[in-house]
């Protein structure tokens, strides 16, 4: 199955937009700071193996911005309630960048509903002396060029001329990202203290050319989560799900299959 169904779910008083497609065990994908309005090739491929669920976070895209939204902890609790509401059990949770931070925080709170956890270039911690890229100060050109290793992808991004609707969505996403991650920049000082609580099998994936959250964050995350495995993708920037879709799908499906055995 490749065509997703589109719906809105109301959880904790917040109406969120959701794409869902495929069959199999549930795979909940938590997007990064740029949102998740469209059914990416990644989701199409994963939906051949899993029931893929892609909500837009409260504050992002077509979802509401609830009064209660202040920090990533709010979203971690929100997604616990979301999984309860949808009756999701044995969830394969995949989060990228901001979504990886939410996923890690959610797992620290309670791994009960989770079968596996995959963190793709997650935000959420700080490594002393290793600054992240300042995405809020990057011009649109620097932004595109710094996100990708393959500059052809950057060129494609720069050639896009978003309509007003899309620009509004981008501004809304940027605002939500700032609210959650401006200060301290893309991390929560308390998260690293409790990452040892993550008790489900965990895979961490990083691009070796990530200019937003440098690859040095990969080993740091791995060492904080008991038993976590780290895979580094060669010639890849901050968005492996866009730049290295097939490698990422292969890693995720292999990891989940091994856990199931």
């Amino acid at each position: 199955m490749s065509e997703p169904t589109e719906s809105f779910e109301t959880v904790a008083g917040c109406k969120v937009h959701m794409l869902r497609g495929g069959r199999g065990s549930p795979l909940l994908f938590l997007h990064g700071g740029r949102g998740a309005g469209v059914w990416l090739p990644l989701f199409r491929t994963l939906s051949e193996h899993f029931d893929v669920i892609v909500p837009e976070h409260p504050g992002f895209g077509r979802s509401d911005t609830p009064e209660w939204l202040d920090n990533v902890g709010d979203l971690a609790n929100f997604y616990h309630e979301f999984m309860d509401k949808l009756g999701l059990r044995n969830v394969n949770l995949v989060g990228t960048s901001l979504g990886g931070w939410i996923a890690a925080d959610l797992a620290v709170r309670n791994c009960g509903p989770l079968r596996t956890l995959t963190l793709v270039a997650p935000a959420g911690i700080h490594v002393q002396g290793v600054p992240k890229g300042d995405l809020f100060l990057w011009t649109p050109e620097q932004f595109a060029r710094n996100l990708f290793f393959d500059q052809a992808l950057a060129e494609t991004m720069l050639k896009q001329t978003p309509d007003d609707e899309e620009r509004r969505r981008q501004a809304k996403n940027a605002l939500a990202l700032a609210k959650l991650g401006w200060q301290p920049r893309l991390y929560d000082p308390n998260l690293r203290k409790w990452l040892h609580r993550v008790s489900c099998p965990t895979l961490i994936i990083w691009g070796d050319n990530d200019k937003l959250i440098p690859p040095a964050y990969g080993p740091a995350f791995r060492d904080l989560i008991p038993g976590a495995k780290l895979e580094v993708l060669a010639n890849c920037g901050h968005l492996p799900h866009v730049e290295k879709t097939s490698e990422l799908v292969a890693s995720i499906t292999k990891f989940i299959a091994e856990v199931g055995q």
Partner: protein
Amino acid sequence: MKFYMIHLMPFADLDLNYDKTYNSAWVTLPNTYYDPSKGAKLYNRYIDELVYADELGFDGVCCNEHHQNAYGLMPIPGVIAGALVRETKRCQVAVLGRALPLLTYPLSVAEEYAMLDNISNGRLIAGFVRGIGAEYHSTGVNPAESHDRFHEAHDLILQAWTRPGPFAFEGKYYHIEYVNTWPRPVQQPHPPIWIPSQGSRETIEWASHPSRKYTYLQTFSPVDQLARFMALYYQQAEKYGYQASTQQLGWATPVYVSDSDEAARREARPHIEAFYNKFLRMPVEMLLPPGYLSLASMQAVTDKIRSGPAAGGYTIEDLSAKGMIICGSPDSVAQQLETYQKQVKFGKLIAMTQFGTLPHDLTVRSMELFAHKVMPRLRHIGEEAATAQVHAAE
């Protein structure tokens, strides 16, 4: 009309070729560009210029607040205001800062302003601002919280001045069990409050509210924008059921006077062009971090900025045509201001008589011409209550 002099205290000795290497005089321009031996002289020169405005008969002098840049060297404006309240004898002293959201402890502003109001025996004008977008990069304060923090800090300060302490303030960002500000201000219930802004509907709705009626200052904007926002203030006041006075509206703009229009333009040119093209230079990402403007305003403002001046930057001709500098002989400056005043109905002119690299001798001469030959001709206008004519500005 009432006349105030504002100083930004730029680092006028800045190497203007910095922009071959850096894209802004803010946030990321290395502070090695600042030369303390030159800066020490500049500070004292600038304070002298402000004090001289008092002697020349200006109604007030204004300091400003900006952080980590070459554009303005008053990160802590209270230091300058502290010198001014002692060195001036007659005029009001306005602090057109404090950027409330940038502070973790905004009660310090209630204290600082109350001290200045006491030392000056009631000559303080209290400014409240949010700072510009660049300052959210420089301080790390979250721009997405800027509006909410501003309003909450404002409420805290106003209560600190007007409610007998101690009392508890229970805000989202500031929760203080014992608000009990010493000293209390001399001016009761509190010093006059001015709200400088680059213009936004939300700010005008808030400032013009009958419970506030704060003086709204439009800063460094083209006259068409000035007209639009001032008309908006009058309309908003009418919606609230009262007639706004001209004294609720001020315009802050660079002013330069010389013997003739030609001389004024020639003398001011390099300095005003440096002000707009070098000292104010910054990319839109620096100026407008997410949350600094409402989502409703963001898109239009971003488009406007991206379509800004041509590659060579602003020329004094562009700037004069847009009213972004008032420049000319005393006659011509008086006429321009009279025309704009009739059109826009502001009651306070906040003249920036030093800008960019403008040296001391030209600054002083322009101030003297302005005070002696322009101010007396305009004193009588802008004092009347606003009339229905304001609708002509729409």
